[in-house]
């Protein structure tokens, strides 16, 4: 793989994804989970721009990326609101302590 700008960005996307999924697997703190999800979303945002550039449709790629940023901000807000409620009702942000539903 030659190190063209596109390939470098692609590598960046993959790196962000790996970091994001790894974080998702090991983190136990609710706020950190929201952060990790944001990392994944940023990876996707870059991927969209990259896709647009690769097919010559950069404008489309960029507008999609902007929309996704807005949309996932909303998701983050909702997630944080839930996290706040958890902290208030259960007193902790540790995922292991609020995992009571099983079977």
């Amino acid at each position, binding site marked *: 793989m030659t190190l063209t700008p596109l390939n470098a960005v692609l590598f960046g996307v993959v790196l962000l994804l790996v970091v994001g*999924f790894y974080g998702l*697997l090991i983190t136990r703190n609710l706020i950190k989970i929201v952060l990790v999800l944001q990392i994944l979303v940023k990876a996707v945002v870059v991927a969209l721009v990259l896709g647009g550039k690769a097919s010559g449709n950069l404008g489309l790629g960029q507008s999609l990326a902007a929309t996704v940023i807005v949309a996932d901000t909303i998701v983050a807000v909702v997630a944080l609101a839930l996290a706040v409620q958890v902290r208030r009702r259960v007193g902790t942000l540790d*995922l292991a302590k609020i995992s009571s539903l099983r079977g």
Partner: protein
Amino acid sequence: MAAILIGLVIGLPWLGAIVIWRTTDDTPHLQHTLAVAFSIAAGLASLALIRFSSAETAISIPMGRYFGDLTFTADGLAVTLTAIACVIGSLAVIFSVDYMHGEGQLGRYYSFVLLFIGAMTGLLLSGNLLFMFFFWEITALCSYALISFYNDDPKAVAGGIKALIITQVGGVGLLAGALTTYSALGSYQVSDLIARAGTIPAGLLAVIAFGFLLAAAAKSAQFPFHTWLPDAMEAPTPISALIHAATMVNAGVYLLARFYPAFEHVPGWTMSVLMVGLITAFIAAVSALIATDLKRTLAYSTVSQLGYMVYAIGAGGVFASQFHLLSHAVFKALLFLAAGSVIHSIGTRDMRRMGGLGKRMPFVRNMFIVGALALAGVPILNGFWSKELILEVGLQGSPIWAYGLMLLGAGLTAFYTFRMVWLVFFGAERDQLHVHNAGSAMKVALGILAAGTFVTWLFFGGLNGLLASTLPFHEIEHESLMELVTAIPSAPATWLALLVVALGAGVSWVRVRGLRLFGGGWLDLLVETSFGFDSLNQTIAKGVNKLAGRLSFTQTGVLSWNVVGILGALLVVLIFLVWSA
């Protein structure tokens, strides 16, 4: 005319079911009356239908591309069994008026009984395989609902669910057969399957044939699906008489009889049918020998007699099986209802606590004895003629060792029958039991059935003519009543059979007089686990539960594992796609 009667025979019970469902349980008198009225009306319609029986399709309603035409055909096979179902159905309902007196939730009881009768007749008259399956499933639903009628009793609930699951598994066989027929012939019509069976590729035909055998065996509680019927005895006794003696369990025999011409040339099929019947008849008779519960004994007896009918079909005697089905329905219903009178009166089903009841319930005792004589095959009752016919057919159409075993079975039948009679009605009273004689509704039902056992064999000629003329593919020989009456007593096989029966009765007399209940430790264990098959059932049920238990660990509640699941699945799917592209 046939079309109208068919509509009545299915529609009246269902209308009754809906009407009774709308009544409230604080009007039991109304519920009893409505149930009796609707069931008698259906019974009359079914008897009238016999006059109009023909091999032609009576009703045909297109139901759309995927379901074929909803057809009903009132040929001899169908109308005979329909009449049995409706007439005995109405007698069972009449009997219920006394038996269920004072019980709660009568609305649910009668609704399901009537729903059942309508569904049963629909099954018998149906000319479309998928709709036959439709009615088949409804009868299974009603059977389950009525077995577990006493919902507070966990044994009843367990019995109902067990019956449901086992018969449903068999039902998959019928479904597979119906669907395979459609895929091979493009039609769901019963008549098409019978007429064009030769054009179906051998492998597919075998699937259909054995699928139907599976369904029939499960429905009629034949080996290896015989485990549900004894547990179904938790149902109220009129239900045991109706569903588990006279109607629903006959559906399996009906299925085999109906499709015999289509499958008789499938390699191994007739032998399988024969073996299923033979094994069932034998092991059920042995089980009846040592059972201590009155209804269970009758249940085993039913299974055994059904085995005789299945054996007859396997040996090529479709008509003989139907003749015996008629006799059996009458005398077995009689026995169940008489037993019901006893149980209702003294409050227990355990024969070890009975004894000497004959003195205090003379009418019931006499009715029971009539039924017992018919069951054992004593001349001149209906059971004698039909059982001898089966044995004769067996002698001609099955291996000699099979015939020998069935003959032995007849002896065992006599043995357990007289044991039953003795234990309940004669000898010393073993327990202090309160006895009251049967109510008038019970007596009416019993009387009619007892008269029937003396009389139904006289319809031999008529039945034969009916079946021979309306079942073009079954190649039934025309025989008249005179032929029967002269042939049977003159055949040496008959005297051999009578000898065996007398032997059985004699042994029973000797052993039971000494109050020795036949059986030792190992035999008891064998019967209790239904010759190992109940333990097989239990193992399967436990295995499924254990698997489910192991799987519940996958729901860990831990988010990380859930995400692992997502990523892992992604990998698997990607590999699959790349590999298959």
